């Protein structure tokens, strides 16, 4: 007996005009978020944009913070891949990467990754923010699960990030930031599918539960509570 949730997914695919289980005709497509093992020595590179809504207690107004994101995944042998991810809006820059283990069972796939990386922010605006900067060394542990349909792939990622050490210098106030502590938990939902001609597109939503959202480094965040930070993203695979 097929479990109920598989039947629900089946209903959805039928509704979206896709045929169920006619062989994975587009099995050759390789996506970034979906943790299906890559063919060794092939890679996935995507570039996109994101908009983050910072929590109201910190910014007092709902301005989306934009950023440019790049992501890279390289297939190594035996279900392992090398992953790197970067995000920048000039003032806040985040780079992390590491190893990911992937396995697929038919349409399902699972990945577990450990990344290390860093955050750097700097701004020098005359008067108020002369020579302000911040940095952090981080570790990120991710678990990804994917489900491949004929015409698209769905995936969910749960991740936790750990700040090894951080420091900031804003308007001549130098301070050690959170260090040796788990800082963020986040959940990402992504839909990946073919788009124009041969290109693939990833669209999604990410919800971060954070004590110190890295995009707020410049602000005097005295609000020492965990806050929700939603983010929308879109990336084109080249």
């Amino acid at each position, binding site marked *: 007996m097929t479990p109920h949730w598989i039947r629900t997914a089946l*209903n959805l695919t*039928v*509704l979206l005009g896709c045929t169920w289980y006619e062989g994975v005709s587009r099995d050759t497509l390789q996506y970034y978020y979906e943790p299906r093992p890559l063919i060794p020595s092939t890679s996935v590179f995507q570039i996109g944009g994101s908009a983050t*809504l910072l929590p*109201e207690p910190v910014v007092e107004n709902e301005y*989306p913070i934009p950023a440019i994101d790049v992501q890279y995944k390289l297939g190594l042998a035996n279900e392992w891949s090398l992953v790197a991810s970067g995000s920048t809006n000039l003032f806040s820059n985040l780079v992390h990467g590491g190893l990911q283990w992937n396995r697929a069972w038919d349409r399902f796939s699972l990945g577990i990754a450990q990344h290390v990386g860093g955050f750097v922010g700097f701004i020098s605006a005359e008067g108020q923010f002369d020579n302000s900067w911040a940095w952090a060394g981080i570790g990120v542990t991710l678990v990804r699960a994917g489900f491949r349909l004929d015409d698209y792939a769905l995936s969910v990622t749960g991740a936790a990030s750990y700040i090894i050490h951080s420091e900031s210098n804003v308007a001549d106030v130098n301070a050690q930031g959170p260090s040796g502590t788990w800082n963020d938990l986040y959940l990402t939902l992504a*839909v990946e599918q073919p*788009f*124009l001609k041969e290109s693939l597109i990833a669209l999604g939503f990410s919800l971060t539960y954070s004590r110190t959202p890295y995009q707020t480094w410049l602000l005097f965040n005295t609000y020492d509570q965990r806050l929700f930070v939603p983010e929308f993203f879109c990336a084109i695979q080249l």
Partner: protein
Amino acid sequence: MTTPVMIVILLLLAATPMQAQDDTTYAVELNVTVSPSFSFFEHDRYEGASHDVMFGTAFTSRVMWHPARLLAFGVMTGYTRIASEALPTDSNHTAGFLTRATLTSIPLQAVVSMQGPNLEVGVCMGPHLMMTSIDDGKPAQGSRMELNLTLLANYRFDLAPDVWIAPELRLSYFSYRGVLSVLPSFTIRYDLHRY
């Protein structure tokens, strides 16, 4: 018991012949949507306000660019009336309800949707121009931009060549005000251009 029946119905619906929209056809689609709206306010609308659901209406239109595959991008605008009610003039409600407060908005949003042969599921993101007016004989108006997130799903039926009618359900959330609206809607879709 109902699930197999539903699957059969859905399979039949999915197998219904549709307008040629194969893997290479690009389309520009116009959707016009009419909706009653039922809005839930997270915070008191005014001191001592009831927690009634506010009834409103929405007229929106979106133009979608739909290249070949499932995904379509577009823009949406229109006019929505979220709430309109008479306010008590004093706290004891003795002087009657002489002041009328109205909350309307103009959506200015980006839309992303996925379309199968009949089903469309989408999300609208971006600001609404929120307009409030209080009229106690001397009307006062104010406006500001606020972000909104709307989820939509519709199932369309052929009406005429290039024209479809679709019952549509929308959920709309204004985070700043904490207003959640449910909009059971009807959409008419017309394909402006195919290439």
